[in-house]
């Protein structure tokens, strides 16, 4: 399948050069000597070329050969080795995570490249991607010695990273973890004992060492998440001078046999079977009340991983859509409903096929708009010279984060389903690539905090953060953006729907605020739908902004310009999303206000 991997960077160019203020980002001190606006095309073009020609051909190996566990060792397909080396040597790998890297790309551009690579082989990307969060944690919370000891080889790609949270007994319930850390004579070094499971890239043969960032509880730590500490636990011990020591008593018990991303090794790891596994504590040990720092630290990594999850979902959705679009343009079946005596037509000429295609396209582009807009805020939050602006951007990211994790990763299952449907019976076979897209995508709604956890994060935390001010600012920005497009020509009905959606959303918030104290169960019962409503409102407002840019462009270029179909496509995509998807918000508002509780009222035996 991979040989005909189809992908375009046209929407990315539109977003970076015409919609978002990328110039502002490139003018920050971190980038101004290295990048200008006219570098964008080359970076996107070369990145896409690498995705097509170097990354995509390995996708089939990931699915057909997969990661293997034999004689206690995990192996990855041979083509993954070559690819890993290529990505590291050419600056597409871990070096991008080094804050001091010369020529480090802004997030806005880097995220676009990551999208191409993820679409081309979603099972490969974790081997690089996980080093991002792991190195970032050491960069933020490690001592100078830790940084010298671990980071150079993590940034060079010689060592990879993981995040070890989940245990057989607890995934979402991370506060219940049983992995223990025992103090030693060295106040920073602890003995580690416990078992972790579902560890992505937890063991493999691509690097000489793997640096696990592991959650464990020190003796005497408080129960629950409060008592969790974070440790650097290398697979092979790293001496203080950065050289490799003895194996660190980290054993791979098994790897999972999964429905998708089979090339990504998902390991169960046992730490300290022999009692010699050591870990280095990041930050301080638990205080006198047993309160530790690990969970807050780990959230830095989790936030990045959640953004990456939404990105992968969107990338897979786009790849599946591209296959469906191509198939629809080639497959001849049936006749036009308005010309039943005419010739047989390509299925792209059928109304329902178009509905399915635009359903996918509009959700993908809404998701990309959210992810890219959030990346813009990430760059502001890190690189702006204005501390107020940095703070403002950080506040937006707080709200964006659960949305961009959960919405794309919920929707990719629906969009790939439509991509399969467009293929008819062939879509159900493994001869066509869309089945793999669906299989590869399913994990994304589950890992890095299930999408229900994201919805609780939104409703339970982000709505209320800083007394609700952070969400209120976020909401105001969305509402103002919609208002600013009030007079957009030909978009009166779309504006009306969007502004009604703002009202419906306020009703949802008001209802839950007024009623959750009476029945707390309505929060978890409806939070998933609230998250979707939030994402659709935001996505609709962003696509409306994009439509405004596209309409302006059409005026300038005219309908005979070669790029007219792209801009007309942007306009129709925004229209479809607002007219066909956004009205779900009204339904959600009705359902929530109706506040049916049958799902909790039904007897377990009646289920």
């Amino acid at each position, binding site marked *: 399948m991979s040989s005909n991997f189809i992908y375009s960077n046209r929407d990315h160019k539109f977003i970076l050069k015409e919609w978002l203020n990328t110039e502002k980002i490139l003018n920050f001190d971190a980038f101004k000597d*290295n*990048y*200008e606006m006219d*570098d964008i*095309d*080359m*970076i996107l073009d*070369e990145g896409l*070329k*690498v995705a097509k*020609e*170097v990354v995509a051909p390995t996708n089939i190996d990931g699915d057909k050969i997969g990661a293997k566990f034999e004689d206690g060792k995990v192996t990855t397909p041979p083509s993954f080795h070559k690819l890993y080396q290529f990505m590291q*040597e*050419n*600056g*597409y790998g871990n*070096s*991008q995570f080094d804050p001091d890297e*010369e*020529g480090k*790309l802004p997030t806005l551009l880097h995220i676009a490249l990551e999208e191409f690579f993820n679409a081309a082989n979603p099972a490969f990307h974790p081997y690089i991607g996980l080093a991002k969060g792991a190195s970032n944690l050491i960069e933020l919370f490690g001592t100078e010695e830790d940084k010298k000891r671990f980071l150079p080889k993590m940034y060079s790609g010689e060592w990879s990273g993981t995040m070890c949270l989940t245990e057989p007994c607890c995934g979402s319930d991370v506060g219940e973890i049983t992995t223990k850390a025992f103090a030693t004579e060295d106040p920073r070094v602890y003995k580690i004992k416990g078992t972790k499971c579902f560890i992505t890239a937890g063991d493999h043969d691509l690097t000489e060492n793997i640096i696990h960032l592991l959650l464990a509880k020190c003796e005497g730590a408080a129960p629950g998440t409060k008592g969790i500490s974070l440790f650097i636990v290398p697979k092979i011990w790293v001496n203080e001078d950065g050289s490799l020591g003895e194996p660190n008593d980290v054993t791979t018990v098994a790897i999972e046999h999964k429905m998708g991303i089979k090339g990504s090794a998902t390991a169960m790891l046992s730490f300290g079977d022999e009692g010699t596994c050591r870990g280095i504590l990041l930050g301080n040990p638990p205080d006198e009340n047993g309160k530790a720092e690990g969970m807050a630290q780990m959230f830095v990594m989790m936030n990045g991983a959640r953004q990456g999850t939404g990105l992968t979902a969107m990338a897979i959705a786009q790849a599946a859509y591209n296959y469906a679009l191509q198939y629809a343009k080639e497959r001849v079946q049936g006749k036009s409903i308005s010309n039943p005596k005419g010739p047989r037509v390509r299925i792209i000429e059928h109304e329902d096929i178009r509905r399915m295609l635009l359903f996918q396209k509009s959700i993908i582009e809404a998701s990309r708009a959210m992810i890219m807009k959030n990346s813009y805020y990430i760059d502001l939050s890190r690189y702006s010279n204005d501390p107020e602006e940095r703070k403002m951007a950080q506040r937006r990211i707080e709200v964006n984060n659960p949305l961009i994790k959960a919405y794309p990763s919920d929707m990719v299952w629906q969009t790939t389903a439509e991509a399969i449907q467009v293929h008819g019976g062939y879509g159900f076979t493994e001869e066509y690539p869309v089945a793999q897209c669906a299989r590869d995508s399913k994990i994304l709604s589950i890992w890095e905090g299930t999408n229900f956890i994201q919805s609780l994060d939104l409703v339970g935390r982000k709505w209320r953060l800083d007394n609700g001010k952070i969400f209120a600012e976020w909401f105001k920005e969305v509402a103002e953006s919609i208002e600013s497009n009030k007079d957009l020509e030909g978009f009166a009905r779309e504006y009306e729907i969007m502004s009604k959606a703002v009202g419906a959303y306020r009703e949802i918030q008001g209802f839950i605020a007024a009623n959750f104290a009476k029945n707390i169960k309505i929060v978890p019962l409806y939070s998933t739908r609230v998250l979707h409503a939030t994402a659709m409102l935001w996505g609709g407002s962003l696509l409306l902004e994009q439509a405004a840019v596209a309409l302006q462009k059409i005026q300038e270029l005219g309908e005979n*310009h*070669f*790029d007219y179909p792209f801009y007309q496509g942007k306009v129709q995509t925004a229209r479809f999303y607002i007219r066909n998807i956004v009205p779900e918000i009204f339904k959600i508002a009705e359902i929530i206000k109706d506040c049916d509780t049958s799902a909790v009222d039904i007897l377990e035996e009646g289920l």
Partner: protein
Amino acid sequence: MNIVVCLKQTFDTEAKITLDAGGKIERKGVSLIMNPYDEFAVEEALRLKEKDGGEVTVISVGESSAQDALRQALAMGADKAILVDPGEAELDEYATATILAKAISGLEYDIILGGFRAIDDGSAQVAGRVAEILNVPVVNVVTKLEVEGGKAVATREIEGGSELVEVALPAVFTAQKGLNEPRYPSMKGIMKAKKKPMQKMTLGDLGLEGQVAAKVKALSYSLPEPRKAGKIIPGEAAEAARELAKLLREEAKVI
């Protein structure tokens, strides 16, 4: 060792070719790439430089969009670029070669490389003409190149085999597929590319203003006939083969 690489920007191999209202090839909205055979030439130049040191200059004749192809070569590792804008001059192989040769004659060079042909017009003439004007030898369709002590040994494809040619430098070599595997520009390479010198010249700068004109004029362009749908012969293998033979004989008239 100073190496000059002539390169051309061409349509993307995946581009859909159409004709505009005037019957010429539509250039608008078509994505452009470095001619793939020129990529082999750039790669070979970089390998020679990495082995023996020296400088790689890439040169192209074209409008400003051709800068992108030159920049790709700079990102791959070439040291400097020259873009000659032909202005209003009509170009054919003769005119392009004349301009390139004039520009190259102002440079120091030991080796001149180029693709053996461009994938758009496929004339395979320009490099040979450049060699002729500069009065240096040319070895075409090279699949291996070894340079040592002012001489080069080139392996070139010939009908049914290959030929080893020894030639004194300076000389022109044209690259064939198989010469090497071109590298992808690294992120660092892309970033550094725009800090490398890109010299823009006009025909006036070369003293050629009004001096070059195409000798060949394309009268018209036409697209190939769309391929007709194939025919599937159903039924048992033996029966279908009989039917196939019959159709090949009576309908296609090929046997």
